[in-house]
């Protein structure tokens, strides 16, 4: 059920604002049919979450279509015009470079980039926000960026680095496939960070866009000898703080 300012939402009327096969409608359907009460302070707050989730899904698909390679941290690469490659394999925004230009470059000059699945997720979040926020606001919000899995994430995005169990899984959620019996010489296959694209599909950088079963099968190919435990999808999600970001968005737009 969706509650706006302590009143139930007229779901049919609200849904009609979005195209029939849209991501937004799919999300509204899950939220409204859930036993959990999803409370929003305003309809704008809900609209922002739908908009950001849509952009997360679309950006994940854009990253899939790009030429950004899968590379382990030791072999990570980035465009030195915008980013400094750290000793740990992270990408540090260079001084005097606009965050918006640097994030956009990952998709423009994508063949100059290579990283692991977790960093790819963080890239998706930044680009999705860049698609929504006015560029100058984005640059004020994120003057310093380090792209390296869930480390040193900006305070406005910190929540994506934490996973929690939830009642409902939604398009735009970060989901994690764990591989407990991974080959010890392939720690990069210890698990796959993915974005839930809806319709039972997930994007994982280095694997692609597949169903949960297909991703599990791929991870299982990279287990140690005599492995007896299959990879599996964790029952938890990582989500940005949509309400905090909505407040920032409406204050600055």
């Amino acid at each position, binding site marked *: 059920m969706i509650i706006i300012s302590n009143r139930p939402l007229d779901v049919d009327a609200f849904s009609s604002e979005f195209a029939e096969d849209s991501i937004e409608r799919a999300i509204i359907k899950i939220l409204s049919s859930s036993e959990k009460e999803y409370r929003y302070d305003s309809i704008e707050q809900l609209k922002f979450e739908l908009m950001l989730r849509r952009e997360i899904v679309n950006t994940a698909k854009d990253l899939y279509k790009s030429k950004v390679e899968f590379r382990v*941290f*030791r072999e990570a690469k980035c465009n030195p015009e915008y980013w400094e490659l*750290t*000793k*740990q*394999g992270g990408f540090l925004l260079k001084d005097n470079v606009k965050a918006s230009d640097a994030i956009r470059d990952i998709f423009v000059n994508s063949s100059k980039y290579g990283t*692991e*699945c*977790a960093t790819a997720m963080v890239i998706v979040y930044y680009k999705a926000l860049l698609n929504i926020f006015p560029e100058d606001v984005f640059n004020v919000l994120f003057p310093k960026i380090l792209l390296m*899995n*869930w*480390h040193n*994430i900006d305070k406005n995005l*910190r929540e994506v*680095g*934490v*996973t929690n169990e939830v009642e409902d899984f939604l398009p735009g959620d970060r989901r*994690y496939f*764990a591989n*407990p019996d991974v080959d*010890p*010489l392939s*720690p990069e296959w*210890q*698990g796959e*960070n993915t974005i839930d694209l809806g319709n039972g599909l997930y994007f994982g950088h280095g694997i692609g866009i597949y169903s949960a079963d297909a991703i599990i099968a791929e991870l299982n190919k990279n287990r*140690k000898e005599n492995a007896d435990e299959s990879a599996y999808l*964790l029952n938890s999600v*990582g989500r940005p703080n949509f309400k905090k970001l909505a407040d920032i968005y409406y204050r600055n737009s």
Partner: protein
Amino acid sequence: MVLKAISYLDRIRFVNGSDALKTAFRKLCEGEMAVGLINDKRLLFASLFTLLPEIEEFDLYKHLNSRNTIAIKICKKILKADTLLTESSEEIISALKWIMTTGANDDGLNSEYDRILDGTAALLIITYNDKTILPIIADMIFKRNRKGAFVHDLVWAFFKANIPETLRIISGFLRSTNKDDIDLACKLLNIEPMKYTAYLSWFKENYPNLVFTGESFNLTSNPQPVIVDLEVEI
């Protein structure tokens, strides 16, 4: 380190550097001394690693002792060449432990060398269930962290040991005078800064009920290595 106690080849590397070692070894290969010196039981892994191209070039492989032969196979396996380890577990573990115990001091030599140490740690802990090298791995993790180098794979291998001893070893770094050590120890233990004695009290009290979660930096910003499960049968 007392130079007299170390091997001839290691001494050249320590005093004159890796390039000098390679040059000296090439000269030795023209005579009959090279094989004996590379098979010296005191040799450190970093010197063997440094001389891998020369061993290949002078076709010395068939003259190497068992430790060196297996160590080279391990290197090839870790660096993704298709290499099978067909020796006995005891021989492999012995070579792995030699790589780790004599190689850790030269961590940071180059990217391939560090990969080999990371892979060796993972093989010992996960494949061969050897926990004796955990203190060495912990030292490497904290030394790398002080230099800002890559630690995630080592941390992952370390906690794959899945024993409370890992927490006790890491908690020892809460006593460090180095702030980076204390910060990393708190991060790895997923605790707010606290005194070592306070953590040890908590550890002793909860020891029987600690359950390892398998969380890593690949999943979350703040992996929680263990939870306390009061329903665990003691």
